[in-house]
């Protein structure tokens, strides 16, 4: 792209535009667009918000308003290569979910919500992941890992690529 200060690549723009015919309003493409940017950049920086708004014919503030509602989208720095959510809601908590999260944080040397210095891993506490029959569980990227123990959690951190 000619303008080097732009963040959205042609590929991202094409992916976002592919959603336009699905909805009678451009604003409805906000979440899909934020997801697309997030998939590529592992966060949604302010410049991306401005460019998404331009595509959707919105004010940047409207996109920013939506973005900040969902704690999901990080803005300041990219998430780790692997974003891991460890469930802390009731079914997992009853079977040791909070201990799994603590053990993993200890192994990775970070607090919940933080990213390791090498950028490999972001560890976050999650509310119910909807896999209570496999409690305690975590969602590592797209992979659901169930029936965890503090040991298996630490092993996951230790062997992460």
């Amino acid at each position, binding site marked *: 792209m000619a303008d080097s200060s732009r963040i959205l690549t042609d590929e991202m723009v094409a992916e976002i535009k592919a959603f336009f015919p699905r909805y009678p309003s451009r604003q409805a493409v906000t979440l899909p667009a934020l997801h697309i940017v997030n998939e590529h950049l592992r966060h949604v920086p302010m410049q991306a918000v401005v460019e998404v708004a331009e595509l959707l014919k919105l004010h940047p503030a409207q996109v920013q308003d939506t973005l900040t509602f969902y704690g999901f989208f990080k803005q300041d720095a990219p998430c780790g290569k692997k974003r891991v959510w460890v469930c802390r809601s009731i*079914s997992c908590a009853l079977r040791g979910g909070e201990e799994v999260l603590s053990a993993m944080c200890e192994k990775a040397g970070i607090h919940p919500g933080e990213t390791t210095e090498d950028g490999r891993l972001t560890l976050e506490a999650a509310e*119910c992941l909807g896999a209570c*029959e496999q409690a305690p569980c975590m969602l590592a990227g797209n992979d659901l890992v169930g029936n965890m123990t503090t040991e298996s959690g630490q092993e996951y951190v230790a062997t992460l690529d």
Partner: protein
Amino acid sequence: MPEFEPVLLANIGKTDSHRRSVYESGGGYQALRTMLKDKSAEDVTNLVKESGLRGRGGAGFPTGVKWTFLPKDHPGPIYMCINADESEPGTFNNRILMEDDPHQVIEGAIISCYATRATTAYLYLRYEYPLAYQRLQQAIDECYEAGYLGKNILGSEFSLDMYLHRGAAAYICGEETGLIESLEGKRAWPRIKPPFPAVEGVFHKPTVVNNIETLACVTHIAARGADWFKSIGVPPDPSNPRDPGSFGPKLYCLSGHINKPGCYEAPLGLTCRELIDDFGGGVWKGRKGKAAIPGGISMGLLTEAEFDTPLDFAGPGKVGCLGLGTAAVVVLDDTVSIVDFLHNSCRFFAHESCGQCTPCREGTSWSLRMLERIKAGRGRLKDLDLLLEIGDTIGIMPGTTICGLADGAAWPIKNAVRKFRDEFEDYIKRTNPDGWMVTEPVEALEATGIH
């Protein structure tokens, strides 16, 4: 009563149960063919109305009746929003249906769109279900290939498009108008009703919002008829003219301190104890049950003595719970501290309150702060009264909030403190021997668990 035959989980466990070919080989999409060929949209709506099907998402509103709230002869478009933002702690039945039998859900969705004359369906799926996302997208693609979606479905006049829309990890998007706002690209702040979505929903058009399991039930009602559906479950209580009954099969989620956690199908009206003992193999480690969440954490708590409560739409309410909710039972064994339970519940709701209504935003946050203080050994007996004051005053029942999230936050507080008051008092006196009797305001602890 004849032997119960599971239908919602019938395909689960078959090889490639998520593929169209497997679904069709078991008779899948025959009901859709029959409905499009032989029945009018009104016929289908009446069929679902007659069946007595009540929404499986938590509120239990009669599905067919909801459909009749759509304006007559509307020029369109009418939208269907399929609520797959299953986020209630303890609940995973919709995930199982979407991952392992998505066509059962989609067939019901297409039939429901035909009945309601919806021409576009958005399936709002929570972000936390990546496998369901992949399987549903594949299933939708397979349906377009087979002519079950798109223009002139199976040669009829009826056309329908279906799109997946991913959420971004916010519990409030399961509230139907929060879902609509989120779908429109805004913050998911629930709307003041009326107007209800049936009159003005997404994109200012009439909108039906139905849950995944509800739509799966529609598939079987279309295939087997309203009488079959009504032969299962619990008829209306004759002494309560407002009880529409609890008909049909239900997916019960069972988790927590149980030997065999899982998703089980049974007729509505099964008791909590039957679910725990007959399906779940009893409380784990040979222990006794202390309490159970009857239908997702919002519904409150059953004590062990209340485990014989039938899990139908009317049952849990009779012992002070909010309702059946999602029928997700979470078992607490007798080693669990009720303080820890309530702390976990309050943390969840403080995190998930959308912040729109002050009583909910402040009530959930302050109840968490109090629980943090109690847990840290600085609780006072007065805190229990303050917690109950919050519990009794936030929500749509006391009339202070726009949506029911706050009622869901209030019920675990009210049930836990009222049903286990002695344990709270003992804990507070034991851990705060010098300060439990203080009634003057005290400083809050820093809330650590909200974000």
